[in-house]
């Protein structure tokens, strides 16, 4: 079959699109090594802003808070997201499934100002009704982030479950394994790559969120985006460029390595399935 080719037109669109996506990030990286305080006026190469960043106690403290929240968010979102995805793809219809499906997809597009405000009002109301103080802080941010990110994890895992060959699960069930065993022995290993990408996505979304955290955080829990936002409001600062460079380099490295391994695992799986069919 003749594979369709891209014309010069589509190639140039692709090139321009990638230029648009990557040029601003490259500019951040280049100017993070600029000695000049004015950021975009180049004077000479220097790493002094990295040194300044690592002496900024507030920034480091906020980063630590954010990393902790992101780790626990990602773990909880993967568990809840996997359960929600199983409900969406593997269970026959039950009463209330329509509402469930709506609550799973709505957070994907719901403006964060609405979710953030509503969650804050929930925590405040819970405190008045129960008398127990739901102090705003890391736990409330965690709850907000889990609710947001589990929607994304559910989508990733559902699409993996939907394309998965059901005959494997059915075969195991015919051989006498119960549903729980089938899930842990057959389904879970096959969807493992989706769990990993879901975990990473939840982690980065949580690490990145400003709006939800601003609404539900307390005085002692300033996250990294909140810290960055308040200093970026004052104008550009070379320290933020240094932080941006560290973030971009870390994410790209993890992203490319993760992509490479998943690609390899996928190819191996397809080869093995092909062999199994031939035998």
């Amino acid at each position, binding site marked *: 079959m003749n594979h369709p080719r891209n014309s010069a037109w589509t190639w140039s669109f*692709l090139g321009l699109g*990638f230029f648009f*996506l990557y040029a601003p990030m490259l500019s951040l990286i280049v100017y993070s090594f600029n000695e000049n305080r004015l950021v975009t006026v180049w004077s000479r190469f220097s790493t002094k802003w990295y040194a300044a960043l690592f002496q900024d106690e507030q920034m480091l403290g906020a980063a630590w808070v954010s990393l902790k929240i992101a780790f626990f968010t990602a773990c909880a979102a993967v568990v809840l997201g996997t359960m929600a995805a199983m409900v969406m793809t593997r269970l026959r219809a039950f009463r209330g499934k329509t509402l*469930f499906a709506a609550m799973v997809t709505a957070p994907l597009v719901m403006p964060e100002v609405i*979710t953030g405000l509503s*969650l804050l009002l*929930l925590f405040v109301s819970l405190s008045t009704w129960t008398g127990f103080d739901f102090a705003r802080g890391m736990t409330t941010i965690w*709850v907000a982030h889990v609710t947001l990110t589990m929607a994304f994890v559910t989508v990733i895992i559902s699409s993996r479950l939907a394309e998965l060959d059901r005959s494997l699960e059915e075969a195991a069930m015919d051989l006498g394994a119960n549903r729980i065993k089938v899930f842990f022995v057959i389904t879970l290993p096959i969807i493992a790559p989706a769990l990993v990408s879901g975990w990473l996505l939840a982690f980065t979304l949580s690490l990145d969120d400003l709006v939800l955290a601003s609404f539900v955080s307390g005085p002692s829990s300033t996250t990294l985006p909140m810290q960055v936002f308040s200093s970026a409001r004052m104008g550009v600062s070379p320290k*933020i*460029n240094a932080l941006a460079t560290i973030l971009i380099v870390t994410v790209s490295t993890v992203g490319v390595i993760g992509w490479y391994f998943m690609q390899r695992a996928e190819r191996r799986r397809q080869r093995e399935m092909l062999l199994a069919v031939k035998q």
Partner: protein
Amino acid sequence: MSALTGGWRRFLPAPRWALISVPYFWLLLFFLIPFLIALKISFAKAAIAMPPFTDVLYWVDGFPVLKLRGENYLFLLGDSIYLNAYLSSLWIAVVATLLCLAIGYPMAYAISRLPASSRNFALLLVILPSWTSFLIRIYAWIGILKPNGLVNNFLLNLGLIDAPIKMLHTPFAVYIGIVYAYLPFMVLPLYTNLVKHDHRLLEAAADLGAKPWQSFLKVTLPLSKAGIIAGCMLVAIPVVGEFVIPEMLGGPDTLMIGRVLWQEFFNNRDWPVASAVAMAMLAILIVPIVIFHRAQAREMEGKLT
């Protein structure tokens, strides 16, 4: 042994119900109920107390009394700033979504026609920016667009302009920021759709004498309708409530409803009015959210088209 576990099982909920109830309970408590509470508080009145609003529901002699005050909504209607903010948010969302579509469609189209081996890598390049901090990518544009920023310096050095052009803190900067931040969300669903197309349809169209642009308009574009809808909803709905981009790149006159809500809550500390602003925004967005949900649910349950 098996008899024992079998006996125990009877007291445990069936796995099916355990599986459903945990995420169901979480979403009810932390997603649905908060909206109901916000709806309730939007009918309250701001007060100097903790929490800073009056009771909507209270008990008189053992009977519940519901006191709904419509003042907040009347207030929103009465002050033109709110109506203007809603209208301008909708306008900005529509224009930015069309811009995203105009840039994202050709990109998704080009990626879907790459050889299978490089397709996934190109897709990774599209998604990768959205994994790095949203805030920092918006911040990058401040350095590019400001009066002594990269673009102005470049144009001044070339001698094309004599004085810096004001780009930062203008609607132009807001559009750039939105398109930049949301482009991956447009490309992804479009690509997922376009890559599934059967190329033999285009060959058939060509055999029947259609020019490439004709077969694009008559075959490819109608077939990608689902992808276009998903991509547009994924961009337009959150953009209506966007706060960070107008705050960082827009001017003081860039009116967007997310920003108004933020100011009501954080600066004016008027929680009931902020709730009313949120509920009115939700009322506008509910139809697009339902459209998006329908498309997404079909996708999630593995049905095609």
